[in-house]
């Protein structure tokens, strides 16, 4: 007892320290037990439970089916299929209406207006061919599928289906050496990867949390669903008779989403076997009661919260991107535009991957927001590949039905089925958007892991598309 009695805190700490030796080793458990006992007692006094078996049964029965070993996965696939089928087949009509309005009517009208007030060609090109067209494409391509997809997804979420998905996937995550709650942060990533990365906070162990952060990018996000849906319905759906087109395109999108989930497991397993070795921690997952979704409110909030937010983000990025793209396509250096130089430079590499220069440039332009991949590709294809007629508003292309227009545009850009498939693959497997990268940096506080999270997926994407392209061409040459 030679401690000087100057600091009361030290005294308290030493008292606590010495008492800790007196009390049981299982202090923590005793503490928790005391709380539980008292909580149970108070709850019991205040609650009257019914004599007969209550209606919990409905939830139980439903859970038995939804989370069963036999039916769990097939049901999940069927639900996903229904959501995408409704999205794809429902989005066609409004999409083509918007395209007619904004592209076929709006664009020539604005051009005429500009001409009548004698606007110089460069300003008119910059504003109308650049900024307006980029925005118009974003709206007509993205708004309809999003306005259908997000409310449907939100309805499933409100009903209480998502935790069941997590429950079904939990076992697979654990086998991959990751935390079962990663299923929840992954599901969140299907909305937005930045939000998914933040959602990993529910995982206690730093090792498993890092795995969840690094692999969240493989959950297809808001910004990438439209790309998948559009390309699938144009190229994959076109392979089969019209009645089957919706179904087959939905199948393709679900396939890509599942590939993403598979890659999540694969990379989680890889990480947990190599750089992030460790024990899997256990946890309990609560299955919330099923709640009848409030349909109108859900539609309202999901359109406001998700659809319009995502659309607005796309427009905000599309406006300057449109302007820059127009400039880069019209500023001529040594006989070719800047965009042309860049595309030509990347073209050989793009072709090696079964893509092309335009697509690679689009993915660079779209680092701030995945949403603008498709609009950028369209802009660049129009501006560079010599498809004219947009400016005059008199091109044959624009007299066709909207989906066909886009298709015609892609074909003019030299696209094949391989290009479409590899674009879908590369859209799944490439770097996260800059918002997500920033979030990863904030959450991990580590430059090293941020770099890995950003670069590893791109390298994987290159590898996957390269292999697919080579195998595809080999088979083609054999046929």
């Amino acid at each position, binding site marked *: 007892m030679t401690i000087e009695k100057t600091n*009361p*805190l030290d*005294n*308290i*700490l030493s*008292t*606590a320290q010495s*008492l*800790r030796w*007196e*009390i*049981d080793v299982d*202090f*923590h458990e*005793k*503490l928790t037990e*005391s*709380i539980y*006992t*008292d*909580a*149970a007692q*108070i*709850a*019991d*006094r*205040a*609650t*009257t*439970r*019914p004599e007969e078996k*209550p*209606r*919990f049964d409905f939830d139980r029965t439903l859970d038995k089916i939804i989370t069963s070993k036999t039916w769990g996965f097939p049901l999940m696939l069927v639900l996903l299929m229904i959501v995408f089928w409704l999205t794809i087949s429902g989005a066609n009509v409004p999409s083509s209406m918007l395209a007619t309005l904004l592209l076929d009517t709006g664009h020539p009208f604005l051009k005429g207006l500009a001409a009548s007030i004698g606007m110089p060609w460069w300003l008119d090109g910059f504003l109308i061919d650049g900024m307006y067209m980029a925005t118009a494409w974003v709206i007509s391509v993205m708004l309809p599928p999003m306005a259908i997809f997000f409310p449907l997804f*939100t309805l499933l*979420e*409100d009903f*209480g289906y*998502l*935790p069941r998905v*997590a429950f079904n996937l939990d076992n697979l995550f654990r086998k991959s050496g990751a935390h079962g*709650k990663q299923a*929840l942060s992954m599901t969140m990533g299907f*909305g*937005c990867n*930045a*939000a998914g990365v*933040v*959602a990993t*906070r*529910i995982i206690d162990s730093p090792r498993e949390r890092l795995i969840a952060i690094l692999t969240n990018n493989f959950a297809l996000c808001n910004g990438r669903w439209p790309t998948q849906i559009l390309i699938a319905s144009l190229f994959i759906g076109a392979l089969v008779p019209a009645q089957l087109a919706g179904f087959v395109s939905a199948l393709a999108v679900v396939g890509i989403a599942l590939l993403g989930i598979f890659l999540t497991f694969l990379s989680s397993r890889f990480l947990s076997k190599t750089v992030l070795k460790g024990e899997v921690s256990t946890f309990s*997952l*609560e299955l*919330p009661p099923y*709640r009848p979704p*409030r349909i109108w409110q859900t539609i309202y*909030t999901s359109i406001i919260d*998700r659809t319009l937010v995502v659309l607005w983000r796309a427009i905000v990025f599309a406006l300057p991107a449109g302007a820059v793209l127009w400039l880069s396509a019209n500023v001529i250096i040594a006989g070719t535009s800047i965009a042309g130089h860049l595309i030509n430079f990347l073209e050989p590499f793009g072709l090696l991957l079964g893509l092309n220069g335009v697509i690679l440039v689009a993915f660079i332009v779209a680092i701030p927001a995945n949403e603008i991949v498709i609009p950028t590709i369209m802009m660049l294809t129009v501006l560079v590949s010599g498809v004219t007629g947009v400016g005059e508003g008199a091109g044959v292309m624009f007299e066709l039905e909207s989906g066909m227009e886009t298709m015609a545009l892609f074909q003019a850009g030299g696209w094949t089925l391989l290009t479409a498939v590899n674009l879908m693959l590369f859209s799944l497997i490439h770097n996260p958007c800059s918002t997500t990268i920033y*979030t990863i940096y*904030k959450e991990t506080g580590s430059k090293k892991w941020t770099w890995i999270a950003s670069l590893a997926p791109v390298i994987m994407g290159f590898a996957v598309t390269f292999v697919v392209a080579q195998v595809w061409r080999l088979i083609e040459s054999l046929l």
Partner: protein
Amino acid sequence: MTTNTKEACETCPIHDAAALKKLGVDMAEFDYVVALAGNPNTGKSTVFNALTGLRQHTGNWPGKTVTRAEGGFEYGEHKYKLVDLPGTYSLLATSLDEEVARDFILFGQPDVTIVVVDATRLERNLNLVLQVMEITSRVVVALNLMDEAERHGIEIDDRRLARDLGVPVVPMIARQSDGVPELLQAVSEVANNKTLSKPYRVKYTSPELKRAVEKVSKEIEAAYPELPNAHWVAVRLLDGDERIVEALRKGELGDLKHGDLEQRSANLQVFGNQ
């Protein structure tokens, strides 16, 4: 909000409920800070939306809110800042979301903490209520999801519960905004010191434990008379919680001004789904 005539109903406490002004994200010059705690998936975000008029997306799954959301409302001539904390089962701070919730209740020293409780799972939810009440006595329990409890044939005697817990208990169906006026009234009464709570204290089964906690908490009370939760701090010290030792050492627990709260808010501010 001016009163024109003195009518009988104006003297009724519920009268003020009509005067709820949802301020959304406008939180300038608030008088009181109210924290919103609760187990995951009990409808915290729904209560948050009902009070602030904001439309935080509410999802039916635990872990939906991992960050903090803030909003404001005005009621009975006072402005309140409402902070929606991540849903947690306990405040033992084993994961980041639990730490965010606990640190806010502990260091942010909110004027009132609303604990949203799932009426169908009362027992498990009360664990958190008891833990929150160890830290602060300024608690209001929002007994939410009463409709689901009814659907399952569970009856809850909320007055008995309030008496046992020693804090106000408000039955609610937040999805339909049922019970919001009563909740506001209870919150304002706690904030304005019109309700004096006598929170239930957990009884320790082992006598050594009880003696140890009492001994340490006496010393803490003597050294830090300002500390509102000496008992809880004693338990944490006996449990060997380094974070609390550090907080005592830095004086984070002793006297804390609202300026620090702002500082912490900034530290915890996260973008994403807010």
